[in-house]
């Protein structure tokens, strides 16, 4: 659990990052800052380099040039020890879960604790159970294998594992993709709850407009190798950049925006936030 710090503190600082795959330029001089305690969303069309940027932030890929600092550690030429220490301070939830098929869900969640801490097994099991219930899973799910779970449960289990070491920073890759609306709502609420409870900084890659409107504090739009705009969804919707407008102009964009307006009106009417429209 982190000591309260000023909201201005930068947790992730990306500057002038360039990435190429052969002749294909993915990022050209990309700059981005994520502040402590915020829920930050990365959006962009397919192939705009969101996932590559995420992989660069979590030490799975090195950019061709430019610097990335995460939690005040420079990622270029990082030593193995520093990399390990850094990896223990963040949690990553992969799009398809990345759960180990040979382990039960509970063992998957307990694995980082077993691997890196000196706690005894009984305690690790109890903590894993708690994390699972935190992620909204029934305790029975703990003894099942990943292949026996539905897509929504798999995402929740993956989230529970990413929370195992109480990270300061959480990366979520498409947390609501492939979920039914109710489960997606559950994930929205969960993300907010986690931030409030642990003061987490959360970076989300998503296409889910509801998630963007309801949860994200700031959103960055990636296109043509750079960040086209950063701001809250309301601020972005006022921008005129065509790459950004794409997200608001389609029928989906409009309906999500309309729902948001309704929710705000209801909040004003009743004086308290309404539950999310289903």
């Amino acid at each position, binding site marked *: 659990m982190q000591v309260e710090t000023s909201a201005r503190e930068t947790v992730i600082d990306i500057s002038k990052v360039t990435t190429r795959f052969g002749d294909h330029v993915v990022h050209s001089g990309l700059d981005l800052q994520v502040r402590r305690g915020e829920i930050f969303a990365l959006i962009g069309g397919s192939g705009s380099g969101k996932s590559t940027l995420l992989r660069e932030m979590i030490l799975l890929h090195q950019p061709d040039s430019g610097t990335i600092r995460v939690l005040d550690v420079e990622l270029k030429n990082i030593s193995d020890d520093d990399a390990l220490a850094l990896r223990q301070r963040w949690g990553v939830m992969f799009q398809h879960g990345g759960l180990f098929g040979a382990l039960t869900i509970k063992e998957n969640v307990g694995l980082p604790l077993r691997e890196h801490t000196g706690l005894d097994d009984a305690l690790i099991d109890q903590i894993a159970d708690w994390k699972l*219930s935190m992620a909204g899973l029934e305790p029975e799910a703990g003894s099942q294998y990943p292949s026996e779970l539905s897509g929504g449960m798999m995402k929740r289990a993956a989230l529970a594992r990413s929370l195992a070491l109480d990270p300061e920073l959480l990366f979520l890759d498409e947390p609501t993709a492939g979920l039914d609306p109710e489960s997606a709502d559950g994930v929205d609420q969960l993300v907010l709850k986690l931030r409030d409870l642990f003061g987490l900084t959360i970076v989300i890659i998503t296409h889910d407009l509801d998630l963007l409107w309801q949860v994200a504090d700031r959103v960055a739009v990636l296109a043509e190798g750079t960040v086209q705009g950063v701001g809250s969804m309301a601020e972005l919707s006022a921008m005129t950049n065509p790459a950004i407008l794409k997200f608001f102009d389609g029928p989906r964009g409009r309906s999500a925006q309309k729902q948001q307006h309704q929710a705000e009106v209801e909040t004003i009417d009743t004086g308290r936030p309404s539950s999310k429209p289903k």
Partner: protein
Amino acid sequence: MNSSQVTPAAVDQSTPQELALSGSWTVWGMGAIGAQLDALTVPVRAEIIVNGTRIDALDTGGAWVLQSFIDRLRDKGIKLTISGLRLQFTKLLEVAAQAAEDQTKLQSGELTPPTSRLENLGRNAKSTFDQIVALLGFVGECAVGFAVSVAHPARIRWRPILYNIRSAGFDALPIVGLLSFLLGIVVAYQGADQLRQYGANIFVADLVGLSMLREFAPLITAIIIAGRSGSAYAAQIGTMSVTEEIDAMRTLGIVPMDLLVLPKILALLVAMPLLTVFADVLGVFGGMIMSRAQLGVGFGEFLDRFVKAVSVTAYLVGICKAPVFAVIIAVVGCFQGFRTKGGADSVGRQTTRSVVQSIFLVIVADALFSVAFSALDL
């Protein structure tokens, strides 16, 4: 942030009524705290103050340990007052208390009894039996598929057949050739000593010729192909069923049997006899080289004797085993592939099974051939 850089969590009992907590109550700092908490003696029915002012950090793990300690004391009828805890720590402790309550509520009466040995034996027997039945069912499916293909030759997919002949047959030539050549050398070498004792050097041609052609060439080819291609079939089909490609094929109206299984069986049916002939040639060649080196039997003499000693029947007996082995290997490999369920782990398991079972069945079939041939006087 690993355990060497944090102050370990500690509890200090300054007076019997006061517990001072300090250090990092996190997963990194709590290695020794369990024993410390267990060792504390607290007067019964006392009022105790837990002072948390000096706690540096508290995470979910720490909150859990602290909360279960508090619950344990409260169960003993001890009144606890927690003081000096930071606001955010108090909040976390409340969440932990709620979670602990939920867990104890759920844990009552959900224990499953451990399985007994007898039960395990029964389960294993059942699953083996199921597997045999399923294998028979698969053999039947293949036979039906084959019959349909023969009735409608236009439906036979030639491209995958040719591809499989190349990958399972042509590409296997070097390894099959090398191993049967070495096997020929070994057989001739083992026989050389015995034959020399009786001055029957020339009979090395009988020994090498008959054993290679009738037994070793088909068997070594089958074992190599089971390890090389049977495992590849199982892994390929297994991975495809894990990634839902098989289901996709079915929904697109393509019968997986037609596209994946029959071409492999047909390809091996063609490739295995040819590989066996190749193994025959190189095995005998290996034997010839060894005979000249060890027994002084020249190539000419060897071949002279070989033609007299080894009948065409011996050659055909060896070759006719090859298609049977081919069917066993292809069917078992594909069958195990289709039985893959779940993830990467299962792919590995089924691949291992395909190799073990196909080699097992190949040797069983070879033994049956021996029995049959001796009955038929071949």
